[in-house]
């Protein structure tokens, strides 16, 4: 046999493309030519493959070797084809025999000494080979385990291991829980904790306003510790995106929700995704988790504008002349900002030096394009020193998490029971799910009349009050719930 076909795959932006590696050895001037739109990394594979084959005791066949990567109209990227090409050459020159070669998906990079290395996005390849019902043949890092249940992944350490029985990678065992950041490390701030608890229970986007050093970032970092665990499906979705980007995803597989906090200098493409081929951005990395935007007012208007679609639909659709991609982006937005330019507006012992006009301008900037997507606004003040010292017990993440969990399951139960099909608008849905009794109805009328809330803000108050009632496991919203929700109003 002077020809061979093996299967490999490469990541194209966010998708995985199956590629057939065809090897043909003909008589002619010795050399390797690769066709089928390879990139530089693949061209360079020629030298790696030559050294690896020889280092493992095989011989490089004499003659001209043509390697075709099909389908040929798609650009191929990365070093993952090394292993497939090398095995293809060995098969074509009849130095090795692999039965059922069509059932293998071969992805791996070679070192000069013939060692097989894994490439970026192994989890995505595992998912893909499971879908295709193929056996994944690849390298593995020391201590690496299988991430996707039901995927058959065989590991080669050296190129020559192909001749010995292939060892299957075993599934990752869930490790002892890492000590994650806990809310009981934040003293005081009972009001902020309550607000975050509501945000977590109802998946409301929230904005924290507070001076520098008030603890905004500290609270935000602990926010994901009170969110319900990821389901297995959600965990794989999020981990896949992280894996393709080459980021750590172990904690996600354990059920911890992703927490992303992009800096305010972030470019638009890095935030929502972009480039060619289109790669996922921060919003997709925050999928099923939290997107924390510190210093909200410092983000450029245009950047924030881009988030609106994601917040509405839970997806980002990107269109370029060559491709259209829809990326998942269902995240909870948590934003933080100073209350004013000097940052001291809420502090009683420090005077705010902003002029009235400055304050107005800042408020307008803060409102920006996102304010109508934010449900909860709350203020944070520096905890008083005696609270920092004297307080012995502070609400912990576990307490809050159990409240959130209770509320979520109650909400699920309530929604199953409810028939909201007759409600077409957001307002109808909110009103219907609240099930106001007479006293609450009266209060709502008064509230709408007196407080000069816009229709949109009023609906937000309704939605938040519904979540507060869920926290109390009440099927109808009571006046007290409505009053508390009024505290978090967005004006």
């Amino acid at each position: 046999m002077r020809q061979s076909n093996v299967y490999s795959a490469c990541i194209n932006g966010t998708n995985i493309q199956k590629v057939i590696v065809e090897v043909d050895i003909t008589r002619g001037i010795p050399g390797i030519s690769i066709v089928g739109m390879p990139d530089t990394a693949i061209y360079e594979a020629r030298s790696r493959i030559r050294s690896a084959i020889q280092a493992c005791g095989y011989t490089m066949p004499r003659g001209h070797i043509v390697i075709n990567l099909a389908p040929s109209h798609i650009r191929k990227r990365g070093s993952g084809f090394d292993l497939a090409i090398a095995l293809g050459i060995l098969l074509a020159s009849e130095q090795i025999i692999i039965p059922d070669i069509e059932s293998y998906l071969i992805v791996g990079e070679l070192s000069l000494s013939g060692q097989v290395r894994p490439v970026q996005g192994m989890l995505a390849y595992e998912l893909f080979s499971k879908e295709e019902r193929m056996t994944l043949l690849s390298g593995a890092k020391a201590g690496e385990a299988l991430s996707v249940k039901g995927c058959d992944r065989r590991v080669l350490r050296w190129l020559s291991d192909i001749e010995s029985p292939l060892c299957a990678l075993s599934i990752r065992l869930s490790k002892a829980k890492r000590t994650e950041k806990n809310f009981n490390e934040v003293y005081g701030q009972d009001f902020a904790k309550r607000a975050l608890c509501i945000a977590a229970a109802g998946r409301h986007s929230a904005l924290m306003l507070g001076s520098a050093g008030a603890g905004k970032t500290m609270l935000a970092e602990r926010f994901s510790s009170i969110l319900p665990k990821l389901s297995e499906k959600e965990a794989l979705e999020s981990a896949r995106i992280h894996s393709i980007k080459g980021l750590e995803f172990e904690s996600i597989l354990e059920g911890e929700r992703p927490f992303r906090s992009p800096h305010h200098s972030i470019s638009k493409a890095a935030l929502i995704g972009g480039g060619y081929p289109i790669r996922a951005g921060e919003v997709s990395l925050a999928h099923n988790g939290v997107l924390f935007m510190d210093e909200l007012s410092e983000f450029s208007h245009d950047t924030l504008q881009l988030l609106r679609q994601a917040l509405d639909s839970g997806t980002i659709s990107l269109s370029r002349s060559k491709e259209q991609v829809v990326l998942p982006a269902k995240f909870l937005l948590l934003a933080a900002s100073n209350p004013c330019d000097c940052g001291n507006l809420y502090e009683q012992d420090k005077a705010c030096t902003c002029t009235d006009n400055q304050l107005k301008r800042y408020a307008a900037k803060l409102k920006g394009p996102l304010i109508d997507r934010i449900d909860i606004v709350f203020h944070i003040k520096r905890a008083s020193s005696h609270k920092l010292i004297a307080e012995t017990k502070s609400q912990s993440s576990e307490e809050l998490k159990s409240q959130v969990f209770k509320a979520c399951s109650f909400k699920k139960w309530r929604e199953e029971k409810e028939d909201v099909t007759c409600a077409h608008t957001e307002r109808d849905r909110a009103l219907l799910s609240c099930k106001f009794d007479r006293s609450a109805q009266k209060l709502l009328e008064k509230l709408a009349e007196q407080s000069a809330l816009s229709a949109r803000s009023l609906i937000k108050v309704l939605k938040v009050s519904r979540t507060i009632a869920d926290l109390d496991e009440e099927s109808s919203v009571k006046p007290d719930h409505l009053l508390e929700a009024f505290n978090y109003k967005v004006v």
Partner: protein
Amino acid sequence: MKEERFEISQDEPEYPESLKELEDAPQKLYVIGDIGLLKSLCVSIIGSRKSTPYGEAAAEFCAEVAVDHKLTVVSGAAIGCDLAAGLKTLECGGRSIAVLGSGADVVYPSQARKFLERLKRGEGLVISEQPWGHKPLRWTFPKRNRIIAALSRALIVVEAGFKSGTSSTAVAAFDLGREVYAVPGSIFAKSSQGCNQIISEGAGIIVDKLSLDVAFSQLYESFCMRREGEGSQLNQADPIIRALLSSPCDLESLQEILKMSSVVELMTMMSAYEIDGTVVKLRDGRYSLSSSAYNSSLQK
């Protein structure tokens, strides 16, 4: 009614005598509106631009009493206390003079546009020593403060922070031998430090309506034509109201004062008060009694 513009120089009879007492009396006054008011009995009511509902309530209260005594209210038309005093004066049917730092035909600040237009159309008078079209500049405001001080026989400071332009007006009034009154505030409130300072330097204290009535009657030999007021009674037994009467508080301090463990309960109570108009949430996150609540607390 069309705006009437005048330029009055020092030797003309319309030029108010009171201004001539100034060492650097303005050579020329540029005025728009009812010029007769320059000869009327005036009281100046001023206060901080960064006002709290307390300061605004005090300004409104003083303006109302001044109108009862048929006095013209002089002010700077700045946002906050000045504007509150001016608007309340017009609301009660009184007359008001706005002394501007910019040219009299320039609208500054923009929030006072409607108020200034009402004055120019005959409900009062807008006055400036700067020529027509002069822009508002940093140094023009301290200069106009001395005119506010000089125009009236009495100056009332309703609210002033520690370093405030209001203090310079008070100093000018002291120097001219005018009567200076101030509305005291909590010694813990930053927004009242200036006022309390002025009091410690010898200003009269406004204790209640009666004390202001007496002061006005003695100074201006005026009679009070009281209109009957309405208003609901404030529940002063409630610890929240008592705490807020002394100074605005944020939720954390209220929680400590009331020794409440449940944040939810406190938020619910504050919202209820906010909805019925007893308290307002300030933009710095603190809660304060609303100006109407302050005024109803004065009615015995």
